[in-house]
């Protein structure tokens, strides 16, 4: 039977690790902080596997679905008889799957960081923050109600802020962490309003009630949503607004266009953190939440779901194009993450509810699952490379396969998986997404296949630039420079770093064979989705073309012809390199218009109106006035005047409105 003891351990152990390391971390000798963190996370991972195992071996209900289990439900606050806030752990197929992903990647990142962060200042602090982050993420996915989701959602934001800004002496890291925090906070505003509207109209925060009613729209459930569907604002029903606003929160966390700008900058954090937060866990929180509320999206507000599909498809395309011209290897991976999350969201957006139509839902979560492992793998490999080359730039690399054979192989596995080459895991999940897109509309299918081809191209461009061609450090000048900086020839990372790589590479190879539809589907009924041969052949061929072009162009170092093309003053290329100026646009809005515009106006108001009224006739009077009056009573009269004017305006307002 279900053992709630083990289950409760899963989120609590990382929290315990955080508290322990914050309190005593500085006093621990050597790497003990890291060992403690890793062991506690390891136990949590085992408990999470056990929970998933017991959950999936529970007997099915009479209607063939798997019942959700709610353990530890603690009523925290009761607003009205219906509306109460509870804190608890809610285990269903979705949260069990997420737990497995989060604990596995978190454990790998912990182990890897033992090597990567060795000797860094703030070693204990780093592991403490990792614990806090894991705790918040684990708590987020098992939230039984949307309010708890929100609290953990913000906690995840705070802990990722701490982790991105870990190198707090680096100004870029600090501004990146601030940017991430503020952009996602802005998106969370929409989320919060969405929650308020949804709970106000439905009178509940509970996922189970909300989703259950959506599935049962004809019966009791209809009554729950009726007020929200009837109330309308600017031509949309209140429910649509609520769901759109909740999606805005998801778009912020999952870096969908136009709220994606924080993710590339967040790469300033330590690389294992990028693997954990910006590849496998936090950025997919948005996908998770849409999946959590999927019955409402699919059955009550299909229009909103369509909007999601279009936003996501555009994001995916945009990010893939930008990724093709980036030269910082972490930025390439960051844009590829944005693009892949776009894939997952597209799959949710094009999916219907139940049966065969629900294939997109399953494919999306399957892609979330496989992507977590191969993207974490790619990031950790990139970390090993950066660790040894001391640079993020492609031009400092090349030919590394001779120096780092294990990393090279693991990276290749990751690239093949993300490019969708069988039998690697990405092939299976991407196939499902493409099939669902074709079923939605052929144009969507073709677009997504083309993006898959682009993905293969930029990933293999990255692969070739790192591992093939001449090593940039071989030239005499470069060697002299290296020697000066105290660097050495590239070498393989220590075993504590390569072991997680190998483990994740094996997962990237194997996870594709999991019959995912048996575990997770939109309506809870096990449903097998066979491989679509036509779609699979198309996508593999496109991917191979992409890989072929990349190999031809960059296989032996960048070909001069390509280099010339890239260097040409081509408006499109320049725009792509500058990420289509989206960041500039935001900067313009925030700095020029908001800060400068408003603050100049305020300064002017302050100087001319507030001070100016006082010393109306200019500076001379001001000086005389200062000398005469010890107390600047003149200012006081102005205060009284403004106060009086305010009162009069207010009276006018009350009388005539």
């Amino acid at each position, binding site marked *: 039977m279900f053992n709630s003891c083990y289950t409760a351990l899963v989120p609590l152990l990382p929290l315990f690790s955080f508290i322990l390391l914050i309190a005593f971390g500085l006093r621990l000798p050597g790497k003990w902080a890291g060992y403690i963190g890793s062991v506690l996370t390891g136990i949590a991972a085992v408990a999470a596997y056990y929970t998933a195992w017991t959950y999936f071996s529970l007997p099915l209900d009479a209607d063939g679905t798997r019942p959700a289990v709610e353990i530890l439900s603690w009523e925290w606050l009761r607003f009205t008889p219906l509306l109460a806030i509870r804190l608890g752990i809610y285990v269903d197929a979705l949260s069990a799957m997420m737990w497995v992903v989060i604990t596995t990647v978190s454990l790998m990142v912990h182990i890897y960081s033992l090597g990567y962060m060795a000797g860094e200042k703030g070693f204990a602090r780093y592991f403490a923050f990792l614990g806090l982050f894991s705790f918040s993420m684990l708590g987020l996915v098992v939230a039984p109600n949307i309010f708890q989701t929100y609290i953990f959602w913000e906690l995840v934001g705070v802990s990722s802020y701490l982790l991105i800004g870990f190198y707090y002496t680096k100004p870029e890291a600090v501004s990146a962490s601030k940017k991430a925090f503020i952009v996602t*906070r802005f998106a969370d505003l929409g989320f919060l309003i969405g929650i308020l509207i949804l709970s106000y109209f439905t009178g509940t925060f509970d996922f189970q009630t909300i989703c259950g009613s959506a599935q049962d729209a004809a019966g009791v459930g209809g009554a729950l949503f009726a007020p929200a569907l009837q109330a309308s604002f600017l031509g949309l029903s209140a429910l649509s607004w609520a769901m759109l606003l909740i999606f805005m929160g998801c778009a912020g966390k999952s870096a969908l266009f136009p709220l994606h700008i924080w993710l590339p900058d967040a790469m300033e954090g330590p690389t294992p953190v990028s693997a954990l937060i910006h590849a496998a866990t936090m950025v997919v929180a948005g996908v998770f939440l849409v999946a959590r509320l999927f019955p409402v999206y699919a059955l009550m507000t299909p229009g909103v779901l369509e909007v999601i599909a279009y936003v996501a498809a555009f994001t995916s395309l945009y990010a893939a194009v930008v990724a093709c011209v980036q030269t910082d290897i972490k930025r390439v991976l960051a844009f590829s993450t944005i693009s892949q999350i776009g894939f997952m969201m597209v799959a949710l957006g094009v999916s219907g509810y139940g049966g065969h139509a629900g294939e997109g839902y399953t494919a999306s979560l399957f892609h979330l699952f496989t992507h977590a492992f191969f993207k974490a793998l790619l990031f950790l490999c990139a970390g090993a490379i950066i660790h040894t080359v001391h640079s993020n730039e492609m031009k400092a690399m090349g030919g590394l396969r001779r120096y780092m054979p294990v990393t090279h192989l693991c990276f290749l596995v990751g690239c093949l998986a993300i490019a969708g080459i069988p039998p690697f895991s990405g092939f299976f999940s991407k196939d499902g997404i493409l099939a669902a897109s074709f079923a939605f509309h052929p144009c969507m299918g073709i677009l997504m296949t083309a993006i898959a081809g682009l993905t293969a191209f930029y990933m293999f461009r990255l692969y070739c630039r790192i591992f093939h061609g001449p090593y940039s450090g071989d030239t005499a000048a470069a060697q002299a420079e290296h020697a000066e900086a105290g660097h050495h020839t590239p070498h393989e990372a220590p075993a504590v770093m390569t072991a997680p790589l190998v483990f994740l590479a094996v997962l990237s190879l194997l996870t594709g064979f999991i019959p995912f539809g048996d575990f997770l589907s939109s309506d809870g009924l096990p449903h097998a989705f066979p491989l679509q041969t036509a779609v699979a052949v198309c996508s593999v061929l496109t991917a191979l073309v992409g890989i072929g072009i990349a190999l031809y162009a960059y296989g032996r170092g960048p070909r001069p012809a390509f280099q010339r093309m890239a260097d040409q003053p081509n408006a499109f290329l320049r725009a792509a390199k500058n990420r289509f100026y989206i960041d500039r646009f935001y900067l313009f809005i925030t700095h020029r218009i908001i800060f400068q515009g408003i603050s100049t106006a305020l300064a002017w108001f302050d100087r001319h109106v507030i001070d100016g009224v006082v010393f109306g006739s200019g500076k001379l009077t001001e000086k005389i006035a200062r000398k005469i009056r010890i107390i600047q009573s003149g200012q006081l009269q102005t205060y009284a005047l403004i106060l009086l004017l305010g009162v009069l305006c207010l009276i006018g307002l009350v009388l005539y409105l």
Partner: protein
Amino acid sequence: MDFSQFLALHEEISLVAALVLLLVYDLFAPEKGRRHIPLVACLLLLAHTVFCACDFAASTGCPAAAGSRTAFAGMYDASQAALLFKNILNIGVLLVCLQACPFLRREDNGIKAGEFYFLLFSTLLGMYLMLSAGHFLLFFIGMETASIPMASLVAFDKHKTQSAEAGAKFILSSAFASGLSFFGLSLIYGGTGSLYFADIQSGLTATPLLLGGMVLLCSGLFFKISLVPYHLWAADVYEGAPTPVTTYLSVISKGAGVFALCLILTRAFPLFIEAWQTALYVLILLSITVGNLFALRQKNMKRFLAFSSISQAGYIVLGVFAASPAGLTALMYYIFVYILSNVAAFGVVQLVEQHAGRTDMAAYNGLYKTNPKLSVILMFALFSLAGIPPFAGFFSKFFIFAATAESGAYVLLLIALLNTVISLYYYLLVVKAMFILPPAEPADVPAFKSEAAPKFVLVVCTAGILLAGLVSCLYALIDRTVLLG
């Protein structure tokens, strides 16, 4: 006259007793004992606080005694919620009193310590009367009792020009606001023929005379709460006044003002709900936005917190705007959390001022390097003010917003929410200064050890900030009490 009616005024009597005892001690204590005046004052206040808490517990315990307590033919009419609110104020004042200890031990203030507490308690007495009035005469006596001693407290550092100037500014603008209120009251009296809340309510007609009278009458309270455009005094006075007095002004005085506003609007003017909601709508909008935008460009911590508290006042008044039991509950909870957060923030500011003599923001650069604990506390306080979970400030904002959403003012809610993002930006500026910017060489603020009393206050506030949101019994208690009436 039946003097036994006085016995209904439990809290007021207890406070007056504390006041008189303090005065007597101040007069007759030997030279040595005078050093202990802060301690004596805090103990007296503690006794008073405990008494009030017991009284409140007893009255909620027995249903017969619960509900309104009236005396003097309804002139005094204290609801159960007001009783609870007095308890909240007591806790706040106790924290401020403890925090003021080092300030009063200063050489030049030693002789005035008794006066300080005497004046402080007098203003509290005034607020009590304001909160439990059933008649505008008593209400006004309360308001003036709360204002006039306040002015002398603001000017307490009378040898400093800034402090004296702030005191003069405060008393003059306060007198002006009171004048407006009196004028409004006379209009109301002319229109309805009574000053009892209950009579006014039944005699109201929607004439311009009475509507205008209501706005003028409320102006005095808007001034106390420092809503825009009644806020102009705030920054100067906050900056000039001694820091413990600033703390008191920003939390206790403001909190009592909002509660009193809620009281008179719902008791005397429920028929004008649309009119005062319109007025509050505009005031809230202006306060939140203007407070935030001005806070962005402040270079002095005390002025910065002044503008931040103007925008916080806007959020608190959202609870009045909601005009529902949920709104009142959210309002009281918000004020409690706000007291904790702001006392903690000002506590750190005061300690830095005391040990380094600086209140400008540049002094906070790299504070983490020299005083890590203080920086963390200030960070918690600012995060709580900004409303970041899991700090208590998040929950109080959430309840206030939930109440606003219930009243249907979605546009106002959206603007208020947008403003929380702006506020996050400037609160983060301070956090950035403390944790990231390098300190000046040599450090502006040396590492120092603080005295026991302010340290205790900071610990209590920090614990409150961390726990008040997560422990739900507090909100539940307020909710129960508000529903009792």
